[in-house]
């Protein structure tokens, strides 16, 4: 996997945790939120493996609830471990952003 893909995967997982922390959500709704936020071209097929990974790590938990369209939907919510992970991600991101902004805005060394 390329470095860009690795970085994107890490960022995507953090964003997914953030979205789920705001409210309990299911796969398609999550994809719509990501697309609205600027991650164009996201599909349920690309998000589902990430959700599996996050659930395996214990950051999110899922429950099945009836849906108006027919089959049951899997709703995801954040676990206490997930909240810790999200805090770490947001802290790490804010530090990274400051550092990158510094080099982007710097006109000369």
């Amino acid at each position, binding site marked *: 996997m390329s470095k860009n893909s690795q970085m994107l995967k890490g960022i995507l997982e953090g964003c997914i945790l953030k979205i789920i922390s705001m409210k309990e959500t299911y796969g398609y709704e999550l994809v719509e939120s990501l697309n609205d936020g600027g991650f164009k071209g996201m599909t349920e097929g690309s998000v589902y*493996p*990430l959700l599996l990974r996050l659930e395996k790590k214990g950051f999110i938990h899922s429950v099945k609830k009836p849906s108006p369209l027919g089959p049951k939907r899997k709703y995801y919510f954040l676990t206490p471990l997930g909240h810790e992970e999200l805090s770490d991600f947001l802290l790490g991101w804010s530090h990274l952003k400051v550092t990158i902004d510094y080099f982007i805005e710097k006109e000369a060394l």
Partner: protein
Amino acid sequence: MKLYHNRKLILSGLISFMLVILALFYFLTQQSTNTSETILFTCVILFAVVMFLYSFYQRKRYERSISMLNADYKEVYTLVVDKITTSNLTSLERHHVKEDLLNMMLDAQNRDESVQSFIGNVDEFSKSIINALGGNMSLLIYEITGLQYLIGFIIFVKFADNLNQIRSLSDYFDATISYKSLLLFTLVSLITIPLIFSIYKKNVEGKLITQIGIFLGIPIFSVLSFELIVLLINSVEFNQGQSVVFDSIYGFITALLLLFVGFIIKRSISKHLLQQ
């Protein structure tokens, strides 16, 4: 392909059938009427019947859901299921993924979303699921998977024992196992099974000879460990009497050969049906 996808149902039916036959043999061969044992074996029969009916019901429910997919979704669903079925995911993980995928596809179909926009590249999707879940299994999953295997092996041992009694065969198939031995054997296997299965799962894509060796290692290692423990117990005079799984080494070797043949047949059928 239908036979391959129905293999769990067939296996469940076979185990249920053997349990029922085992219980019937017991009733036919026992002279005394022991109430607790009668209740136990009645429960065994009921459990076998319920297990089979439950598997049958789940299978029919699953087939009904799949029939609601249109041709495009059904084709992609089958492709993904075949890929994850031949991966090193546990049966529990495979079950959850199949169920999730089916529900998501039905939902997407109801939204009039095309299968291409839903899933993208099928190979990449399957690989990403396997990568997300693959790796170390929890000890509990090993135990559950291994116990299913062990139960099949013990059923075979008792089946051979009862067959020997009914048909008065020579001691070639002599397989005696007391309930005390069964309990100790099970306790020993709770340790040996996950050890061997952890090696098996890491070598699932490896050479055939390695897989066979590991597959047969479960009963061999378990029985040897059990015999060693019995010898140790007898040597400190805590336990009187003899407890062995197989009185005759030839019977044990026959059981292993049958397991080996069964493994080869299962593997060949799986590969053949997947290629169709």
